[in-house]
């Protein structure tokens, strides 16, 4: 398929693109070519510059130097408007949909209507529905986006791009929100688009997606291109080496541990979400000392609410939570911590840290009023500083100094601050929610090692993650969550990706579930 139109100029060419953010080089002389009707993987780990490069092509960022050609013609994009006009559409990893608006309003947002500025809703609705039908993207155009499941929202994003006349689609980590089975269907849609002449850039860090779907792959590392290969010409091992720049180290050693007494017991938990709709519908679960229980599931099936209930941040409407045997149902976060909970929250900067405060202060967020950090209601700055030095050392946190504001740290080091703080309190149960999201491989591996070390130290770990690979690699048992229910618990030794995938889509597996509990 590649090069079949060798005489015509390629769909998109990026030539020698360089982009700095301050002193950091996000893209360093990157060349990239996208042919007609090809699916081209842009592979690299977090921070490699994939998204930056595609944001440049989509007109969100302006390159410091370099040229963009579309169909051979040099173009300059000052905003996505011009990129869209050149037939480029992008589906971001975090969807760019306005939750309060309807699907139709989202799809036509920013487009010129026939009688500008009057919106001809009837005309738009007809045309949007036509487009949806012709690409098999079933969606209710009058539904509010906030009420749609994530998978459907992704369809809306693609519809949005296609309706604007995109012939080139950029998809940023599109499979993160899908079950393995949904991924297969999704790939079929993409193949169909390729047949119809569309060119697709697939931003990913998952090697199997490259070999299963793509025609070619460009690998980025540290903002530079380290290779462009035909996908059928390269092995996953080769790709992994290119991506990381060395052989992938083995994941941390798993010791055989016999789990001890339960440290976290959840029975029949029900709760509502922020929109007052049922989020959890009777969840029961136990985590024992020395085991990692992974919660697998597609984003938005109640994981956040489950974590909040355990951490005392959301009151359940029914059921019971016990930490170390102490009743913590609807308790304050303080009580949960005191009972022995450690919590690595999902939203690092938004919840886990106070970005404006120093690293030292962030390290005593919960313990600042306890000895030795305070006496008689007065902070002991020396003790806080000493603690900070110790933790910076122990977790090799790279910060200018302990007084550095936390928001100046890299994502990996921010996560290390949270890890240091939570582990230094010696919890009996560690609740880790999306602990490696957005981290590069080295930082992610550090997190994994710490979680395994905690397990070895006889701590119970509840790992909530949408990264199935992470769940499979770390967990002793895997509980699958779907629409606020645990549809089954599998022993990780016997669990297959396929079975977990089916369960993530809500296919109950009674027999296995019963066997595992």
């Amino acid at each position, binding site marked *: 398929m590649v090069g079949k139109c060798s005489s015509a100029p390629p769909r998109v060419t990026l030539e020698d693109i360089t982009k700095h953010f301050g002193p950091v080089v996000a893209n360093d002389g990157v060349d990239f070519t996208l042919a007609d009707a090809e699916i081209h993987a842009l592979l690299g780990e977090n921070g490699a510059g994939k998204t930056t490069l595609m944001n440049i092509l989509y007109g969100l960022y302006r390159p410091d130097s370099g040229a963009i050609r579309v169909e051979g013609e040099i173009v300059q994009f000052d905003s996505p408007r011009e990129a869209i006009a050149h037939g480029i559409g992008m589906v971001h990893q975090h*969807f760019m949909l306005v939750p309060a608006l309807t699907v139709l309003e989202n799809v036509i947002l920013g487009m010129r209507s026939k009688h500008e500025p009057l919106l001809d809703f009837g005309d738009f609705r007809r045309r949007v529905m036509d487009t949806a039908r012709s690409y098999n993207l079933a969606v209710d155009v009058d539904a509010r986006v906030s009420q749609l499941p994530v998978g459907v929202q992704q369809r809306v994003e693609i519809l949005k791009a296609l309706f604007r006349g995109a012939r080139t689609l950029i998809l940023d980590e599109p499979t993160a929100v899908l079950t393995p089975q949904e991924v297969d269907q999704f790939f079929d849609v993409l193949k169909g688009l390729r047949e119809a002449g569309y060119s697709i850039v697939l931003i990913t860090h998952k090697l199997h997606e490259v070999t299963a779907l793509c025609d070619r792959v460009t690998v980025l590392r540290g903002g530079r291109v380290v290779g462009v290969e035909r996908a059928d010409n390269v092995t996953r091992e080769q790709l992994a080496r290119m991506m990381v720049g060395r052989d992938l180290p083995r994941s941390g050693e798993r010791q055989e541990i016999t789990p001890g007494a339960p440290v976290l017991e959840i029975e029949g938990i029900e709760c509502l979400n922020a929109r007052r709709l049922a989020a959890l519908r009777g969840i029961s679960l136990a985590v024992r000392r020395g085991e990692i229980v992974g919660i697998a599931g597609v984003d938005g099936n109640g994981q956040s609410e489950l974590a909040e209930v355990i951490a005392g941040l959301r009151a359940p409407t029914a059921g019971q939570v016990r930490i170390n045997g102490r009743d913590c149902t609807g308790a304050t976060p303080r009580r949960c911590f005191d009972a022995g909970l450690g919590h690595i929250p999902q939203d690092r900067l938004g919840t886990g840290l106070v970005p404006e405060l120093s690293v030292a202060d962030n390290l005593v967020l919960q313990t600042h009023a306890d000895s030795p950090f305070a006496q008689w209601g007065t902070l002991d700055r020396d003790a806080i500083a000493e603690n900070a030095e110790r933790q910076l050392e122990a977790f090799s946190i790279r910060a200018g100094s302990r007084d550095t504001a936390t928001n100046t740290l890299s994502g990996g080091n921010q996560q290390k601050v949270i890890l240091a703080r939570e582990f230094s309190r010696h919890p009996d149960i560690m609740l880790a929610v999306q602990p490696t999201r957005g981290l590069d491989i080295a930082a992610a591996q550090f997190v994994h090692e710490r979680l395994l070390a905690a397990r070895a130290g006889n701590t119970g770990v509840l790992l909530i993650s949408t990264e199935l690979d992470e769940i499979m690699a770390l967990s002793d048992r895997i509980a699958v969550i779907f629409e606020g229910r645990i549809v089954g618990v599998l022993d990780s030794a016997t669990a297959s990706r396929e079975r977990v995938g089916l369960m993530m889509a809500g296919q109950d597996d009674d027999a296995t579930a019963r066997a595992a509990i």
Partner: protein
Amino acid sequence: MDVMLSEVFWIGLIAAAIRLATPILLASLGEILAERAGILNIGIEGMLLIGAFGGFLASHGTGSPWIGVLGGMIAGMALALLFAYLTITLAADQIVCGIMANLLAFGVTGFGHRVIFGMTTVIPSAPPLADWHIPGLAAIPVLGPILFQQNPLVYLGLVLVVACWFMLFRTSWGLKLRAVGEHPLAADSVGVSVRQVRYAAVLACGGLAGIGGAFLSLSQLSMFVEEMSAGRGFIALAVVIFARWHPVGALGASILFGAAEALQFRLQAQAADIPFQFLAILPYVLTVIALVSIVGRSVQPAALTRPYHKEGH
């Protein structure tokens, strides 16, 4: 108290309520636009005040109350432009900037008034904006005095309610505005300029508040008094919440507050045994009650008070 039961009393009260609601309505329509675009404009009190002064000045200088209205609008927009620069371009805190804008308007109007008109005992006046009696309709009993013998700016306010509703929900401008206030990044990603939309919304807010201010100084008495906005801008902030960011709701809520004010004046004249202060606090107490009763049932624009930073440019 028989007076209170008479038809004349009620017609007068409702007509006055609509009249007194007008500056609050105009300001709250402006505030709806700003907040729907994600900008909380506490400075609207100052924009109302500076509009009152600008309107008075322009009318006094030119002899035309309509140029006065224009002057009020421009004065409001000028302050709004400064506010927009600080909050949008520099991404400074919106509440702090709003406080600053109010203080500035207070200083500028007080200073300007005293410098231009001196400390005379003669209160300067300007040509007022006369009421319009709509031919034919004004003669209708009951409805005529209530609706069709009002100040032209009252009619403008009613027209603007419809215009704002139409703009917000039936035009591409409104769609962009709502998107920018809910999820600016999403709007940006389809080529909508967040900065342009927010500037436009804040300027419109300042302009509308300025017209509302001009109404204060140019209708009826036609004079400027220092601090004459008397918290109406702040009440407009409450009206917006009460109205759930909807223009039609703002009309209803504004009339409610106008009625409280009208009732206060009337009771003051009728019932000497109630201290006037108890009636004077009515609108403010009502605002607090309204605010408390609406909590949890209204959802503000998701990006309200959040500055938007375009990266990578």
